[in-house]
């Protein structure tokens, strides 16, 4: 693996904060890829929407790159002993972009009315809530049905954006005209959106943090072609490239430019793990030996180093190494095609005259060239052991649809952690989430009462030790059964011009408010 110029973001920010005083002014030039469908974060939480709207809207809390809980619109919070009552103290003197004052009324409206209606993930979390009440203009109290330790991880801006009650209350949220000109409390206000071209945000002079933001403007350019994006960065037309904006080997090259830096920080909240998703309902994927054969046919090091160009680490289980619940020393999924062949032989899948033992369908994930290439690699590796993949190439919509309808044999998928296994991980494993129609439900058909039980206990246990034990058991079980073919933990590297300072300061990285970002002359 090549030596990369990777600096931990936190160390960097600290260093630079020491080195210089922030300068005010300047325009930060970013790329929105693909172009978001809308900027009303409450109604749409796709990646690009989070990226752009994360500067307009805010959540109650933020999370540090170590997943520590930081103040957001809530300046402080308390949790009752029994873990049932959460009380949030809001920031003072916050105003909406249209000048209306922000208050606990907005928080109550957002959490109890708006989000449960339009935001699927928030609806799930708010299902744990018994009651939300405003205690005065600046205090909100939330009572849960049962202890839910992950609750405090559910308040970053995309999980629970706070929206203005005075605009949305009593209206049809989806068709509200204000969706076109989003009103938030964030450090940047919506200015102009020329579709297909750019989105421009301008400084919010009335931002509640004094002296911030530093930047005058943020411009999100729409650049559909990856090669053009690389050129745009090289020619200085944009200042930052997000992970996935350009090819990973381009990241290496661009990071090596004299005025560029790169960081892997800022993805701690999501910490995506990619895996091979089997449809456990279908033959032969329902056989653990087949799944293990697939495991052993694939060289995770190769995927991490050659396909992700070193911007990924081999994954050995369902949780990222950064998770506090991560279990070490899980059985290694070693690359050993002979083992695979033996397992397939054992199953009675013997090769025909062309060396083909069995043919299964593979639904290609078209997120980016890298995923497509990973599919090509997997197909070739499986071909080596006699499993022929019949590839279905489709667009993202088609992929999501096939997945949601359980119409696939194998595919590659990736799962976001959302800070706590109970929020991000659980949904893909529990039988209660065997819902047809959604690609982010439990689509593999995994139905194991043991796992259901362990996860349900782990989600509600109040003691961290207890949770660690339960999640360890969970990890051991899914790896033993090889329900998923874990591949790599992806580090989405951010490449940026050195002059951009304080770029990544939280677990949601570039999706955060950028109130602290400044440009050095």
């Amino acid at each position, binding site marked *: 693996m090549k030596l990369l110029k990777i600096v931990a973001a936190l160390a960097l920010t600290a260093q630079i904060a020491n080195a210089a005083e922030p300068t005010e002014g300047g325009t930060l030039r970013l790329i929105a890829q693909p172009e978001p469908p809308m900027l009303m974060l409450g109604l749409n939480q796709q990646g690009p929407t989070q990226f752009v709207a994360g500067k307009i809207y805010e959540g109650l809390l933020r999370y540090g790159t170590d997943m520590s809980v930081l103040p957001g619109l809530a300046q402080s919070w308390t949790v009752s002993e029994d873990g049932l009552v959460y009380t949030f103290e809001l920031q003072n003197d916050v105003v909406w972009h249209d000048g209306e004052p922000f208050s606990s009324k907005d928080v109550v409206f957002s959490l109890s009315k708006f989000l449960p209606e339009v935001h699927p993930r928030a609806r799930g979390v708010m299902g744990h809530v018994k009651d939300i009440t405003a205690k005065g203009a600046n205090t909100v109290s939330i009572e849960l049905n049962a202890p839910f330790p992950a609750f405090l991880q559910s308040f970053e801006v995309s999980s629970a954006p706070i929206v203005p009650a005075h605009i949305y209350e009593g209206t049809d949220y989806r068709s509200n005209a204000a969706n076109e000109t989003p009103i938030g409390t964030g450090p940047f206000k919506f200015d102009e959106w020329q579709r297909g071209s750019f989105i421009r945000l301008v400084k919010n002079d009335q931002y509640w943090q004094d002296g911030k933001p530093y930047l005058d403007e943020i411009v999100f350019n729409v650049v559909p*072609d990856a090669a053009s994006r690389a050129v745009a960065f090289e020619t200085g037309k944009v200042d930052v490239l997000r992970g996935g904006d350009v090819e990973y080997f381009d990241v290496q090259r661009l990071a090596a430019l004299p005025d560029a830096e790169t960081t892997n920080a800022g993805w701690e909240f999501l910490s995506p793990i990619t895996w091979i998703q089997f449809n456990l309902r279908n033959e032969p994927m329902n056989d653990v030996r087949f799944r293990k054969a697939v495991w052993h046919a694939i060289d995770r090091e190769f995927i991490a180093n050659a396909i992700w160009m070193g911007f990924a680490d081999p994954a050995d289980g369902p949780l990222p190494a950064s998770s506090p619940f991560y279990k070490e020393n899980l059985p290694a999924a070693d690359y050993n095609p002979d083992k695979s062949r033996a397992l397939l032989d054992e199953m009675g899948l013997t090769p025909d005259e062309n060396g083909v033992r069995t043919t299964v369908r593979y639904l290609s994930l078209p997120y980016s060239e890298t995923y*497509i290439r990973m599919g090509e690699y997997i197909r070739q590796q499986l071909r080596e052991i006699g499993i022929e993949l019949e590839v279905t190439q489709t667009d993202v919509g088609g992929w999501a649809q096939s997945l949601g309808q359980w119409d696939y044999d194998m595919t590659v998928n990736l799962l976001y952690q959302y800070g706590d296994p109970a929020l991000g991980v659980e949904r893909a494993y529990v039988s209660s989430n065997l819902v047809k129609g959604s690609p982010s439900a439990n689509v593999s058909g995994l139905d194991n009462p043991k796992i259901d039980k362990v996860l349900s206990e782990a989600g509600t246990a109040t003691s961290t030790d207890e949770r660690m034990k339960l999640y360890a058991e969970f990890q051991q079980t899914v790896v033993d059964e090889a329900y998923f073919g874990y591949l790599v933990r992806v580090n989405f590297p951010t490449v940026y011009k050195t002059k951009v300072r304080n770029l990544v300061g939280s677990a949601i990285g570039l999706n955060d408010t950028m109130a602290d970002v400044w440009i050095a002359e």
Partner: protein
Amino acid sequence: MNSPLSLFFGNRAAVIALACLAVITLLALGASLIYPQSPWKMVGAPFQPPAWGGHLMGTDMLGRDIAAGLVHGARVSLLIGLVSTAIALLIGVGIGAVAGYFGGLVDDILMRFTEVFQTIPSLIFAIVLVAIMGPSINSIVIAISVVSWPSVSRLVRAEFMTLRRREYVESSQVLGLPGWRIMLTDILPNAMAPVIVTATLMVATAILMESGLSFLGLGDPDMISWGYQIGAARTMLRAAWWMSFFPGVAIIITVLCLNLVGEGLSDALNPNLKRKKP
């Protein structure tokens, strides 16, 4: 009197182009002999630049041999070009012939129908069709055929309308021959010259269109084709120029040769009549 054949072979550029196409076709046919292994197979380290002795055209990001992909891809690209042209010809000649021969209301209806297809911007139409059917060699061929038949149909109609008034056609009518027979034996063979010329150009256009679809990510993932190679390599232009360079050159050469052959045929088949179509 100069026969079309000798006229064609008197055209140096066309002959060279034909020879070139022959070589490409041979390479395509012999792909399995030259590179017996699957072009998808990772045979070396990723990102090796072209080198004598090593991989002639380098390797791609997964260590697959570009040259192997190129010769195997020739098969698919040519196949897509030929089959889609054949289908377009079948539809186009059929509709054009009926419209041109019978004229009147039949002609009106068929030409309105053709016009509808011709009006939709071709690449947008093709993209939609491929996306809807799912990218596969079949859907690509169908999409290209669907967008390219109208021009054939117009051409054939025009030829049929002219030839229909020819005296030898009328003489067959006078002899009492049935319409289908007149269309097949009297008109069609004499209308074929411009159709053949158009067909060669259509093969070229089809190859270009396939590359465009692949560029947009609508290539068949099971089949390596030139367009697919370029499409897969488009983001790596800077890092590994050879990955898209060689398939790009292959497309340019093939399309160029097809054009030259088409021009040669056009001149040979219509020595007195320079075709209006470029």
